[in-house]
């Protein structure tokens, strides 16, 4: 995108701003004695780069410096800026409901003003310019699965019915098809093992 943001410099404070804006598109820190300014941009994918490109739910987007020291909001094109920021290593967090943003570590250098280093703290990825994009969407709700026959079958009551069906209809067939020798063997084996299975507890007939 690299659209140069023509910020309007307040004569003394932001005099340097315009100079640096020419070669760095959006991650800029300038200032005089009182502090520096940080400009950046929040980009939410799926929405156009130009114009009023922010979705409705990004209307309440906030950009937070150092855990609440300063809070700012996004312009329609997604740009934001902090003013009067002291030099040092700062932390910028973006808060948009529905998206997960990694906090960004921003180093504002006092020696050579205008030099800014930014890195995502979650994955330690460096940023060339302060363009912040969500790492992932956040889905706050479980998705309710549409009705299917399996969910009924899997439910405790479904399993109960299934078990009944198996016992009543399948079991006789199963035993019928088995070799009588094998059944006797199995029963014998079980008696020897003494495994307390349900089959042993059932009242025997005959």
């Amino acid at each position, binding site marked *: 995108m690299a659209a140069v943001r023509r910020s309007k410099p307040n004569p003394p404070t932001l005099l340097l701003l315009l100079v640096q804006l020419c070669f760095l598109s959006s991650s800029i820190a300038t200032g005089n004695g009182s502090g520096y300014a940080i400009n950046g941009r929040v980009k939410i994918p799926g929405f156009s780069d130009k114009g009023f490109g922010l979705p409705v739910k990004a209307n309440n987007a906030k950009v937070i410096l*150092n855990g609440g020291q300063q*809070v700012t909001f996004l312009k329609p094109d997604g740009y934001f800026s902090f003013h009067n920021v002291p030099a040092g290593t700062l932390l910028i967090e973006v808060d948009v409901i529905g998206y997960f943003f990694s*906090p960004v570590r921003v180093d*504002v250098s006092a020696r050579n003003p205008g030099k800014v280093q930014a890195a995502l703290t979650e994955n330690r990825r460096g940023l060339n310019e302060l363009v912040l994009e969500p790492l992932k969407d956040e889905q706050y*709700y479980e998705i309710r699965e549409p009705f299917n026959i399996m969910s009924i079958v899997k439910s405790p009551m479904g399993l109960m019915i299934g078990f*009944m069906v198996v016992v009543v209809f399948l079991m*006789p067939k199963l035993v019928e098809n088995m070799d009588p020798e094998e059944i006797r063997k199995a029963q014998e084996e079980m008696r020897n093992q003494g495994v307390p299975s349900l*089959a042993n507890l059932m009242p025997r*007939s005959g």
Partner: protein
Amino acid sequence: MDPKVIPNTPKHASSSQIPPPPFSLFIPTNNLIAMAMAIKLPLILLFFSSSLIPTFSLFEDQVGLMDWHQRYIGKVKHAVFHTQKAGRKRVVVSTEENVIASLDLRRGEIFWRHVLGANDVVDKIDIALGKYVITLSSEGSILRAWNLPDGQMVWESFLSGSKSSKALLTVPANLKVDLDSPIIVYSGACIHAISSIDGEYLWKKDFASEGSVDVHQLILPGGSDVVHAVGVTDSSQFDTYEIHIKNGGLLKHTSASFPGGIYGEILPISGDRFVVLDASRSVLVLITIENGQIHLEQTHISDLIHGSSGNTVILPSKLSGIFSLRTDNGIVFIKVTDEGKLNVMEKVDKTVVISDALPLSEGEQAFALVQHGDGKIELSVRLVHDMSSNHLKETVKMDHERGFVHKIFINNYVRTDRSHGFRALIVMEDHSLLLLQQGEIVWTRDDGLASVIDVATSELPVEKIGVSVAKVEHSLFEWLKGHMLKLKGTLMLATPDEVAAIQKIRLQSSEKSRMTRDHNGFRRLLILLTRAGKLYALHTGDGRVVWSTLLQSLRTTSQQCAGIKLHQWQVPHHHALDNNPSVLVVGRCGLSLTSPSALSIVDAYTGKELQNMGPVQHSTVQVISLPFRDSSEQQLHLLIDADKRAHLYPTTPEAAHIFQRESENVYWYSVESEAGILRGYGVKKSHSSDTPSEYCFETRNLWSVVFPSESEKIIGTVTRKPNEVVHTQAKVIADEDVMYKYISKNMLFVATVSPKASGPIGSATPDESVLVVYLVDTVTGRILHRMTHLGSQGPVHAVLSENWVVYHYFNLRAHRYGMSIIEIYDQSRAENKDILKLIVGKHNLTTPVSSYSRPEVTTKSQSYFFTHSVKAISVTSTAKGITSKHLLIGTIGDQVLALDKRFVDPRRSLNPTQADKEEGLLPLTDALPIIPQSYVTHSFKVEGLRGIETVPAKLESTSLVFAYGVDLFHTRIAPSRTYDSLTEDFNYALLLLTILALVVAIFVTWVLSERKDLQDKWSWPQTQLWLQSSSEQRLLNICSTPVNMFVNQNR
């Protein structure tokens, strides 16, 4: 103790899915017969299906089922109406909670709202070009424009000044878009001009070079290109400036000295007249600018009003040609004639509140007065030019509990008969906002709830026995109908109308909002103390206000009283059952810690003030709820004043007796953050002669812990919730070993940082910042554990529960937030493993846990990274403490995240052994996972989050969660899921249907078997033949099968 830093664990793929809890199920491998398999299969399926779902999650259609969310804005400071155009009429407000909001003028709902940062206080708001809301904030250094329809920020301008000064904002009044008159702002001792279309910075005029002028008023006469600025230099010289609007050039500067000095603000009367008070507050100075010259004219107030004293103030209401003066006796309207004479027009009562003047059509202006009567308010609108009569007079009934009117804003509309109608927005003493129109309250907003200070809960009354049969029948029918509808819904057979009906039934279940106690303890009253000194009781079921009381004890004195604490006073359980439960409100009258306190006891069911102990003599620094009760089940409280004396409440001989008996065991501590000292105190047994009453006790200092001020500064302390229940003291770990938790109610967590690192992030390098945390016993002052985090700093948010503490801090080396856990175990009981010893009785399990003994303790700790900044941290609490716990973390995004305590377990290791896995230990990861489904606030935000309160429900699995800030949010969560009750979703109709189907199946099979039986009997000879022809073996075979059992028996 070794300093511990975050372990440098290799990066793990942090999976967002919680691994299934291990289950040891015997899976048969040999050739067992099919029956055994058939039993185990569903069990296995059941386990699988239940273990993969995250522990807290919600379906989208469950929103509002057990949670509610209320949005507020706070006490309104400024209001601007926007009613010119046809279409949606709105009012834009800014509040003391730093909120700017656009409200629907018809219903009072919020169209949009923005909560600015905590230090970004809104100074002024206005509407520019008819489409932008302009806000000036942060002492006039940030100017923002918001799109009026949707609240999107359009532009933002930073105004830098040379020194701090007051902030003034002037927006050109004309509505023509093509005429680009700039917005003029005075802030930081400079006048700035900013284009209202795009926020472009046009020019700046610095007054710092002009000498120390303090500008009081900016005036932008309509149609001219000149800005007038009126100010004062060193409070002894009036200055006026005329500045060109296009380029900021200074056109004219006049000044006149006034040696008497001035008090307060200069108030404009008209374009060239101003009025101000002199320093003695007894002389009115009328300033007239004529032909570039300043004329000063002084009038003694005593000449105008007889018998007035020195406490005179000019009210800031801007009424052209008139100003209002508040004296001790009342408010006086004074008219300034064309010749510069001052005429007293009218005197009104002191409590009257006056609005700004509102321009009407024909150059007329109107303003409103509100007078408070008994149970009503009188609103009168007057025309500035015709003060003699009321243009409009309305009497509106007003709830006593709203107090006095604090502010009024008026707006007019043209009626069908072309006369003017007025609507008035009033802000009341309890911070609520009301719109009055045609003598009626159109809507109200309880915005006092945006500033909750403290929270308590109360049970609801027990249900009266006796329910009519008709009601039961009706409800049963309704109940069945509802469940049939639900069943239809699950089977996807419902029409859209029915789906809507299902949702409605679920949301408006009358069960949850009834005013009686329920079995599960979900229905409670949340009692909230607000900054306005009002007490609200909210029903946890639907969040409605059950009652509200403006506390009289906080209103009686002239000083600013504010509530500070809320405590349970009486919770009748056994004895005083006919009494209602009550709460104790402790307030402070004045700003300093030594100001006298105000106490009142409020009935939790009705909101009536039972006892009102006005301003009592002593101050209150600390309130201690003692674990003793008197015969009427009133909780004993100790109030510690600034002189470290303890005052006992209730002031009854019985309470004093109980306290005397137990006073040897009463200890408390104080934290002096500034000095870096912890002190422990006890009560002196003997009464000394200089204590004022028998309920006042002298205290003695028992111990102190002094932190070296050059290296450590206290930034946070946390203690256990006094009412927390711990189920078991022992913790069984994998290899059948037992660890004993060190559980003490007197444990205090203290966090200190090096003084350099006490500033914001980035102000200190990692090398110079050290975070030290302590666990201190508050009875003996013994330091149980000390741990150092090198390269870390605050802010620290912590929660202490059972035998562990979890705290959140900033790790400067990794430049991420960190979270650590310390678990503390009692080593002296570790030998109690030998069963033989237990039988013989050689164990110390029966010795009471006491702070006097010095048990050996060991600790385990571990640290993790956490992504977000944290505003508040809390933990779930359940009735018996059996259910596992969740941490509730209020993030910087104003959401509340439920984090399973299993993730912060110091016994997590990189490669868990088989035994660890069986125990449910998770493999160690370097960061704590953030699972979006486990946000308890789901897609809501609790704007301006300040605290999270948890209350146990009666149902062991469930905990009620209440989060407050500018918004309020309540829900209930089950950390281990509702293992002790069926979920709301449970479909009773499906269960009934299944049972029905089974019964039908039994009958069908019975009939079938009967028939088969009969058939068999008829065909008996054939069977015999067949039997003979086959082998004996086969017969046996058939007989042993269950179906043919009937045949066998009947034969």
